[in-house]
């Protein structure tokens, strides 16, 4: 189902989805090709691009977004510059947070991603807070908080949801079920369906296929409009299709970099991973849909991908060539205004 938007906007969504994919392929290569460039583990958004990009396409620059430890995609989806995202991921001074945040906490206050918590569920109450501020300030801004299925195991989820409903906050809880916790194992949450939990608190709840750009965009647009009209909060479960490279603490390009031509011929994908790329990859599914139903040619898609790869390569080079923060500045930013 293609979104009911202009051809240009449809291609804009594909461009952002491809940018997330290409930028994160660089992140994985940073880890594989350079010793100690990424110290510790990291997480990627590969396989969930349709959700973040389509939701953010329904937002304005005045709306707030909160993310998680899997934040790279959300920042790019909200309009983030891939140069500043990649630079931040490897701790460079030119990154969105001057290298202080790193891969876990990329935030971009100028894009109204004011803070990113890597604690599971950490941003849920904060998001209710920016929504509360919008209510008090009488602005039309909405807040979308992205989180995973695992966050629903945390107590703060319940408190934030209850408060948001009691205070009728302009907030959309956007749960991306990547089946890494409750949704997959069935042993870490006792609810039959995770969506039963917000329903029990009388929060209007929608369950959708998070890999379907048109459906996510339509759902988000409707809910954003209703939230601005004061009908919030809302809860959305977007069911995503877990990428096979995401196992473990260090994601791996198990099938190599994505070939855009796999959108119409997946025979080149290693057999073990072929079904995901043929049926589950939201980027390839959307590219195929644009060709089959959107009147976009394969050549145009390949051209777009080539441009995105060039920009992503440039962003990676920018990040690698950027300086680390001055060690003398390590204690800066503990307190604002010199401590007052």
């Amino acid at each position, binding site marked *: 189902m293609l979104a009911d938007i202009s051809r240009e906007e449809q291609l804009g969504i594909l461009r952002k989805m491809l940018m997330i994919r290409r930028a994160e392929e660089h992140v994985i290569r940073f880890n594989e090709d350079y010793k100690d460039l990424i110290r510790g583990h990291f997480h990627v958004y590969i396989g969930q691009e349709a959700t973040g990009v389509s939701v953010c396409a329904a937002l304005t620059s005045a709306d707030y977004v909160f993310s998680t430890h899997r934040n790279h995609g959300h920042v790019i989806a909200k309009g983030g510059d891939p140069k500043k995202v990649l630079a931040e991921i490897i701790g460079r001074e030119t990154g969105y947070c001057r290298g202080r945040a790193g891969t876990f906490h990329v935030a971009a206050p100028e894009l109204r991603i004011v803070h990113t918590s890597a604690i599971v569920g950490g941003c849920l109450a904060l998001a209710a807070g920016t929504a509360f*501020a919008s209510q008090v300030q009488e602005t039309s801004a909405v807040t979308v908080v992205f989180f995973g299925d695992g966050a629903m195991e945390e107590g703060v989820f319940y408190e934030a949801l209850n408060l948001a409903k009691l205070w009728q906050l302009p907030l959309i809880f956007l749960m991306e079920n990547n089946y890494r916790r409750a949704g997959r194992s069935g042993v870490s949450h006792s609810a039959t369906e995770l969506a039963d939990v917000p329903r029990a608190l009388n929060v209007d709840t929608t369950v959708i296929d998070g890999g379907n750009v048109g459906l996510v965009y339509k759902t988000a647009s409707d809910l954003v409009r209703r939230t601005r009209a004061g009908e919030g909060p809302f809860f959305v479960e977007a069911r995503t299709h877990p990428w096979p490279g995401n196992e473990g603490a260090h994601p791996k390009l198990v099938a190599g970099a994505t070939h855009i031509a796999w959108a119409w011929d997946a025979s080149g994908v290693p057999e073990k991973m072929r079904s995901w790329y043929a049926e589950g990859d939201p980027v390839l599914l959307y590219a195929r849909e644009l060709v089959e139903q959107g009147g976009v040619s394969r050549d145009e898609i390949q051209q777009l991908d080539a441009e995105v790869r060039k920009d992503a390569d440039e962003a990676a080079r920018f990040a690698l060539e950027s300086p680390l923060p001055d060690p003398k500045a390590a204690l800066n930013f503990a307190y604002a205004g010199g*401590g007052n």
Partner: protein
Amino acid sequence: MPQDMTFGESLITALEEIMGQDRRVVLIGGGLVGTGSGQAQLARLREKYSSRIKNPPIAELGFCGIAAGAAMAGLRPLVDIGTATFSYEAIPQIVNEAAIAYSNSGGQTNVPVVYFMRYGIRGGGGVQHSGSPQPWYWNTPGLQLAMPASPADAKGLLRTALMRSQNPTIFLAHERLMDDRGPVPDGDYEIPFGHAAVKREGRDVTIIATGIQVPRALAAAEVLGKNESRQRWWILEPCSRWIRLASSPRLKRPAVWWSPMKVTITAASRRD
């Protein structure tokens, strides 16, 4: 012209003035003075600013996080946590979100939230309603503490925390100070953070006291000063950043006195 009033009355009167002057200030919760004085002022405040006062459910983790998020978006929330130990329910949001956001963002996201709590032994509170968590918060980078010792402090520190500060503040008011009476300056009286108030000057011993220990230390100095003619005391009331204060060469044998422990009193009065 300073007015004579109780600690509780001063606190609520100051808050009423602040909410009248600064529309960014919102109140989440609203017991503030507990069962202490200031109830009439509180009732008036709640009526006057009802649209900016929220009564949350019993969800410290949730509403302390909401306050931090609201501060990130430009409000200046005052959160009444009630008894200080209740703040332990909200540690993840206070310590691991509000306190670190400015640093994490490379100096971009300010979190000017004030977490107000009543601490110390009120009597009859048992082990869970008598806590003094200030050393814990003091050791948390990104948080600053305000511990008023008098009705005037209650006003001056609250104004600074709510209207001037760009950082999250833990505002600790001792349960048993609420009914203490004293002069409170009129107008926009503010006490800047980071500077000690010298309450009594002396020669031999320095006591750095906070909150309720300030009046207690002054009373102790009065008694002990009579018994020992050579004894002279410095009693300072710090507001924040005590490390800088304690390292000042002007101080004589500094001892921090913030809970009634024998060991600190002994250390303060021992002579070389």
